[in-house]
């Protein structure tokens, strides 16, 4: 920036104001919308501004516009300007005057979004925000709302001054986006486990419970609160539920206590300390240990997975499931309303298809993975 000739201070003041908005933009689509609205406000005529494109690592990027309803259009990796040989030379952050030959007019973007809204494919300005080796894949566009608008020298100057900041804001947005998607993905993964997973702080209070753990404790699942102060009431509720189940105030960190008495089926409890680096004292206090809860009385529907994995028939999958649920072959036959000899015949088929020879092997097979994962959407 410092090498460029000094623009008149009036423009810089406006650019600085826009940058302040830009700094706050990456947190949310609404933040981007405020920025785009302000850009349109600064332009010399009636304009629309549009932020669009795929930015690779962060997945499909959102489409945000001011002055145009994008209808939540997902932009899946299509070039914004298609295949012009000159595109390879245009750097990220560069500002391209539109129309760019007839490129924009031939793009998917124009046909799917701009043309239906009556927006001409130029004149206007385009800031390159992302690109593949061959084509521009993400951009900020400023276009006249109706034919006849031409960006002024000042309009262009403002957009050019803004472009490095837009790029940085996009990068910040990608990092925010990736970090959030990362956490959400991991929470979903833990919710897919049949095993209960809890995180406890250094005073044995529950800071997180996955879906299975919440069900075992009869409490609401507790995601890690990321953006708000955690609800102390929630934490307290989950902690009380855990203590009720333990029937004690003192939850020890020894591994392997089997919980339960006459009226509650015993749970298997395995705890392990979480290890943190030396400096992470606050984290070590908040996430002191992980607790796994296994429920020997539970039954997870793995029949579908068994059929897909080993080609079992519905009857064979059901028998395998019942045996894995802890029933004997006699009990399973009764449950299926078939004769014991028929059940034995079915079991033979199961053994042959799964490569097992004993019921114990079969149970181990069912519980290796198929029985450990909750079916999607299972409540």
């Amino acid at each position, binding site marked *: 920036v410092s090498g460029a000739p000094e623009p008149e201070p009036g423009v810089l003041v406006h650019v600085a104001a826009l940058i302040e908005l830009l700094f706050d933009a990456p*947190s949310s689509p609404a933040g981007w919308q405020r920025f785009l609205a302000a850009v349109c406000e600064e332009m010399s005529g009636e304009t629309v501004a549009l932020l669009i494109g795929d930015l690779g690592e962060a997945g499909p990027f959102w489409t945000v516009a001011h002055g145009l309803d994008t209808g939540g259009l997902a932009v899946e990796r299509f070039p914004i300007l298609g295949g012009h040989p000159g595109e390879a030379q245009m750097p990220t952050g560069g500002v391209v005057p539109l129309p760019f030959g007839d490129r924009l007019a031939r793009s998917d973007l124009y046909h799917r979004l701009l043309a239906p809204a009556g927006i001409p494919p130029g004149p206007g300005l385009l800031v390159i925000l992302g690109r593949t080796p061959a084509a521009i894949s993400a951009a900020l566009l400023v276009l006249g709302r109706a034919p006849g608008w031409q960006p002024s020298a000042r309009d262009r100057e403002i957009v050019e001054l803004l472009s490095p900041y837009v790029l940085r804001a996009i990068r910040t947005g990608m990092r925010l986006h990736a970090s959030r998607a990362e956490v959400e993905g991991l929470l979903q993964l833990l919710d897919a486990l049949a095993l209960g997973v809890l995180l406890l702080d250094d005073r044995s209070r529950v800071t997180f419970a996955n879906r299975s753990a919440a069900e075992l404790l009869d409490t609401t699942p507790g995601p890690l609160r990321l953006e708000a102060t955690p609800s102390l009431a929630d934490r307290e509720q989950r902690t009380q539920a855990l203590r009720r189940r333990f029937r004690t105030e003192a939850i020890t960190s020894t591994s392997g206590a089997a919980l339960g008495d006459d009226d509650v089926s015993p749970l298997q409890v395995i705890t392990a300390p979480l290890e943190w680096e030396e400096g992470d004292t606050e984290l070590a206090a908040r996430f002191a240990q992980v607790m796994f809860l296994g429920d020997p009385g539970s039954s997870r529907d793995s029949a579908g997975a068994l059929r897909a994995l080993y080609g079992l028939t519905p009857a064979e999958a059901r028998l395998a499931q019942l045996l894995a649920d802890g029933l004997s072959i006699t009990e399973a036959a009764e449950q299926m309303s078939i004769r014991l000899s028929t059940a034995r015949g079915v079991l033979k088929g199961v053994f042959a298809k799964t490569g097992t020879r004993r019921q114990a092997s079969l149970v181990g097979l069912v519980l290796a993975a198929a029985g450990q994962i909750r079916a999607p959407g299972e409540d």
Partner: protein
Amino acid sequence: MRGVLPHSGDAATGAAGVINEITRRVGGLRIPHRVLSLLELLHEAPGSPAGWVRFLEALRDAISPDCATVFGAMPSPRGDLPGIVVAAGVGPLRLPAGASLFPSVPHLPADVLPEGGVWELNPARFEQSMLFRDMLGPAGLQPGPGLCVVNERDDGFVRAATFVLPRVASWRPTAADRELLEKLAPHLAIARRLHVRLTERRQATDVLLKAIDHLALGVLLVDAEGRLAYVNRAAAETLGLPAGFRGDPASGERDARSEAWYRLVGADRDWSRPFVLPHPREGYPLQLLSASLRASERPGGFGVRFERAVFVGDPKRRSGEPIGVLREIYGLTPAETRLTLLLLADCSLAESARLLGITLSTARSMLKRIFEKTGTNRQAALVRLMLSGFAQVRPEPGVREQRPRARESP
């Protein structure tokens, strides 16, 4: 006052008002290009201490070599963000454990000293603060005259601030220095918020991955570009792939671990159905189940970082041995435990007896005692009991491979 900008109101009609408000506020200032350069650096700072240091160095360059620039933040009240002190113009500073930064700073109410406010340090008072006494003073800085920008505050306390302090006693901040900080101040407050958010999420990722690493079930995460983002220890051992998490690589980049993974499972696999995969070394079938993680995608909003989770079940696995647990809970002797583990690893009773060097009849009577102690009556029931909890967790928490902090590098 959390934000420096009005956040409510219709974006379309509110834009002119916001721009007018900001330009009114900054309009009297001449905005030199160096402010814009500093803002570029500040945009890179959130989420990484190194980024803050680069910004502080540039800020110091813009003011004077006779000053030092310091950013300090207290540990968060929830205890999930550690305190931090970084600086330019002095050697590395280390925040002593448990230190609070601004104990003797008068708790100016938010309307007097708002977030984004600039404040002239009173040397006599600042000298008394723990920040100065324990860190900045011993590092050779003067307690003032200097300037301070409030990056973050709550009702009672300044929680994070940026300082400009003399290294040379004769240095005094000028009106232009103050003007510069006033221009930067709102950006500093926003940068702090972004930093907090990024750090919280990275910590959440860390803690969840630590929990998943304890599972005996193999877990892999595949990212939106089909690369392996994470392999837990169980999956690493079963499949012979390196364990650990991989941060955001550059788009399109492939790595050796992902290549090895696709050599194992095939490049065009239908993930909607579970399938069996031969164990890479021993050949018996492993179970692979996949869960799509795309449900987090929101229209017009956020996409996915992980495309799917893949779970790997090993029916003959020999890890996840709950030796101590079985003794503690069921009172199994070491010999009984060994027999249980062999049965769990899919050995028949005869095979187990041979492996243990005992006769089949000894094994039978041992098994009978195991049944009694565990409240089971058949081998199948014993296997089920173990696999519903105890055998699902690895016995010893191992050390996960260092997670590459790709997104923190410059």
